[in-house]
């Protein structure tokens, strides 16, 4: 659904038809100022009687200039409405309401004075209520209501013909044609159409079939009450009906086709073919979304992301997510909206809009709720980002929550058969645990940095070491970093180059404060510390990583998951380092035991002892040729991480490979 696009489409179709109607009124001398009536008709309409009772029609007859005012008003008001929309980008409720009433009033007058027969114009009045609303929801609700009315026009016409007996009268169409074309038939009747009418009148059985076909065509609109999937077909039927009406009945009913816009736009109306709409749910690890979004935009016609405001604001370091992924719709969770409500809304939206794919980048702590929703939404193709393989398969029964989560996991293992992970080794592990399931490696983001050979190094600037991630003793060994820098800075030999250390994560914990205090004690002209408290904005985060000379991830290779399952970095869980690395071509220090696949390897500098760490540091700082060559090697290796190299994995993940094969 694209609100702006749909609004523009509606405005274009609506007012193109609106002015076409009035252009033909003018050409046929039907404008009130052209007709200049001196009497009014009584029709079987209570509203018209009410209007007559006000005395307005009689007053207008006595004051013919008022007909011109009515014409001018009905022709100019839309320009005001449109002018306001173009200037402000939204509708004016006051003008919208005025326009609706004016149009209704004009149609009533036209029917009172020259029998306009308002039936095909009712939708013009009803759809004009769309101009009353400033909200997207209101817009689509009205559009949807008008769609039902458009369907109702045809279906009720069919019902009338059945219930009033027209359909069961064998001579019906013949007699209708006779009465309707009587003035045409009294003449020479030498035109083709006149001869056809005479033929049909003379063959009642044959013409009855035309009537029956018309009823069938009208009745077919009933399907629109149950599904939107046939809207395009129904639009075609509406055109067919109008053409047939013109040829057989000589009734130019084209004005009703404006209502066809409700079949063209609106929720789910331009539903993409199966497999071309995906929803992504991500509320915890937004830093892993970029590659997925790039791939989704390349493979799906519609991409909708459900995420938290914090995630939205930090999804893209450079520019807003809406600018970076212009074809993606972002649905942001309000602060007072509980996760479960947000998830419920996502499933409702997906069902209503007919999305075929759902990717869960996280399961939050709502495993059972997700399991239930997925179990009942059997048609969705679901894929999942697995962050911790052991945790995903661990079953616990110590508490009620453990039990429900364990039950949920069993359901999820059966229901979700497509998985993505941030390292190939983790995908391999998952496939061992879930034989037959799809498990692919797709990185967090694609590599887009310039060749380091193109940049000019700044001389004499400090060597910048960045330790990314929150200061968490469970995941990283910060003591090791403190110990190293203490040793490095208290050596008898003065450091060849000053060091700037960036602790790029929240250090606002007792543990973090202690580490920061220890490092601050080391500050001197040769050592400067930068640290953060609280959430580090993505823009700052990415800038720090991009300008780093060295990343250091003092990982505890074996760690415990949030539910105490043992995990191994690089094997069963991925470190944020793999995402950080792809922001530039910076080498990264990590303890031995942490393994990365081939394409990452040139960037990974492993150490198993303080001596090795010392040696690596010394070489990086002192051997400029080595350092330059190393960055070049990393750049060449990282060139593998482009979107084109992961299309196959993505198609496998989403099942689009099967669609391609079938196609």
């Amino acid at each position, binding site marked *: 659904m694209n609100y702006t696009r749909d609004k523009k489409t509606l405005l274009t179709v609506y007012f193109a038809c609106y002015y076409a109607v009035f252009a033909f009124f003018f050409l046929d001398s039907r404008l009130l100022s052209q007709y200049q009536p001196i009497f009014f008709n*009584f029709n079987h309409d209570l*509203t018209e009687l009410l209007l007559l*009772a006000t005395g307005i029609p009689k007053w207008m007859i006595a004051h013919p200039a008022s007909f011109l005012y009515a014409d001018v008003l009905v022709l100019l008001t839309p320009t005001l409405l449109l002018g306001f929309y173009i200037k402000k980008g939204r509708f004016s409720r006051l003008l919208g309401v005025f326009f609706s009433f004016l149009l209704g009033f004009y149609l009533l007058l036209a029917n009172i004075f020259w029998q306009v027969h308002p039936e095909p114009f*009712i939708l013009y009045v009803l759809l004009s209520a769309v101009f009353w609303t400033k909200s997207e929801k209101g817009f689509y609700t009205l559009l949807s209501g008008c769609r039902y009315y458009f369907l109702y026009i045809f279906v009720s016409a069919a019902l009338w013909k059945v219930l009033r007996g027209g359909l069961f009268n064998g001579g019906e169409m013949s*007699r209708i044609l006779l*009465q309707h074309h009587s003035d045409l038939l009294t*003449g020479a009747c030498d035109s083709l159409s006149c001869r056809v009418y005479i033929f049909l009148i003379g063959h009642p059985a044959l013409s009855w079939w035309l009537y029956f076909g018309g009823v069938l065509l009208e009745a077919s609109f009933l399907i629109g009450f149950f599904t939107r999937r046939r809207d395009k077909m129904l639009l075609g039927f509406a055109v067919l009906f109008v053409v047939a009406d013109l040829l057989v009945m000589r009734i130019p009913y084209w004005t009703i086709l404006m209502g066809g816009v409700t079949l063209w736009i609106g929720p789910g109306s331009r539903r993409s073919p199966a497999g071309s709409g995906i929803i992504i749910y991500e509320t915890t690890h937004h830093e892993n979304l970029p590659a997925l979004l790039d791939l989704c935009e390349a493979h799906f016609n519609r991409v909708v992301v459900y995420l938290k405001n914090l995630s939205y604001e930090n999804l893209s370091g450079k520019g807003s997510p809406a600018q970076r992924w212009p074809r993606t719709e972002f649905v942001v969770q309000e602060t007072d909206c509980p996760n479960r409500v947000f998830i419920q809304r996502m499933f409702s939206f997906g069902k209503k809009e007919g999305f075929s794919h759902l990717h869960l980048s996280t399961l939050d702590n709502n495993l059972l709720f997700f399991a239930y929703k997925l179990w009942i939404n059997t048609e969705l193709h679901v894929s999942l980002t697995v962050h911790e393989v052991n945790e995903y398969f661990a079953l616990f029964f110590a508490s009620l929550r453990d039990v429900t989560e364990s039950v949920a996991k069993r359901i999820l293992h059966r229901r979700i058969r497509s998985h993505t992970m941030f390292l190939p080794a983790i995908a391999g592990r998952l496939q061992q645990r879930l034989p037959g399931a799809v498990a692919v490696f797709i990185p967090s983001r694609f590599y887009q940095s310039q060749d380091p050979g193109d940049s000019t190094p700044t001389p004499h600037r400090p060597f910048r070491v960045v330790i990314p991630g929150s200061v968490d003793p469970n995941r990283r060994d910060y003591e090791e970093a403190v110990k190293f820098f203490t040793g490095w800075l208290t050596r008898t030999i003065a450091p060849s180059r000053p060091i700037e250390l960036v602790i790029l994560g929240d250090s606002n914990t007792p543990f973090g404060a202690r580490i920061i205090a220890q490092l601050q004690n080391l500050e001197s002209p040769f050592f400067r510390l930068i640290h953060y408290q609280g959430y580090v904005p993505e823009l700052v985060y990415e800038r720090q990583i991009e300008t780093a000379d060295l990343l250091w991830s003092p990982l505890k290779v074996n760690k415990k998951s949030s539910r105490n399952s043992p995990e191994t970095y690089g094997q069963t869980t991925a470190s944020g380092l793999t995402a950080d690395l792809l922001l530039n071509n910076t080498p990264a220090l990590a303890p031995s035991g942490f393994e990365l696949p081939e394409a990452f390897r040139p960037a990974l500098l492993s150490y198993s002892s303080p001596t090795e760490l010392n040696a690596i540091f010394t070489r990086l700082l002192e051997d400029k040729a080595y350092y330059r060559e190393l960055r070049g090697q990393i750049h060449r290796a990282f060139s593998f991480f482009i979107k084109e190299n992961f299309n196959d994995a993505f198609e496998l993940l989403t099942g689009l490979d099967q669609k391609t094969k079938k196609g």
Partner: protein
Amino acid sequence: MKWLLIGFIILQVGLDLAHSVTAFPFVHYGMFSESFDQPDSLLVYEVTVDSILLKPNDFRVYRWDMVQVPLAGFEQEQLGQDADSDQPKPGDSPALVEARLIYRSILPQQLENDDSLAIHFPQWYKQYLSRLLGHPVRTLRVDKAWYRYSNGRLQLLQKKNWINS
């Protein structure tokens, strides 16, 4: 908004069930649904302008409509004035008749066309035809002609001059 729409649809269906009465914007789409009998005769207004008979084939559909509609309206108005206008006409629903009676009792003047309409109509129609045809109309003659369908064609039963101006 949703409930307004639901309310509208309920009213629409209700008005549809009430058959012959409507209350704009609640209208029927029941055109050509009643079971038609073979008509005994067919009334056609034949309009002759400056001695030339106007033919439907020479006009766009709605332009021809505008030649015919005023005549039909005028005749309806005359019929209404001839008969007791408070009496129901064929096809009127009880609700419509009652509403008309109430209106007439409260605002009798507003629901009546001008008494002089019969006098002014021919001249007005001539002027309107001039605007419609794009040239001044000097003489106008309108005949009411009744035809019967027989042997694959319409046969004239009777013709009566109605308007001469």
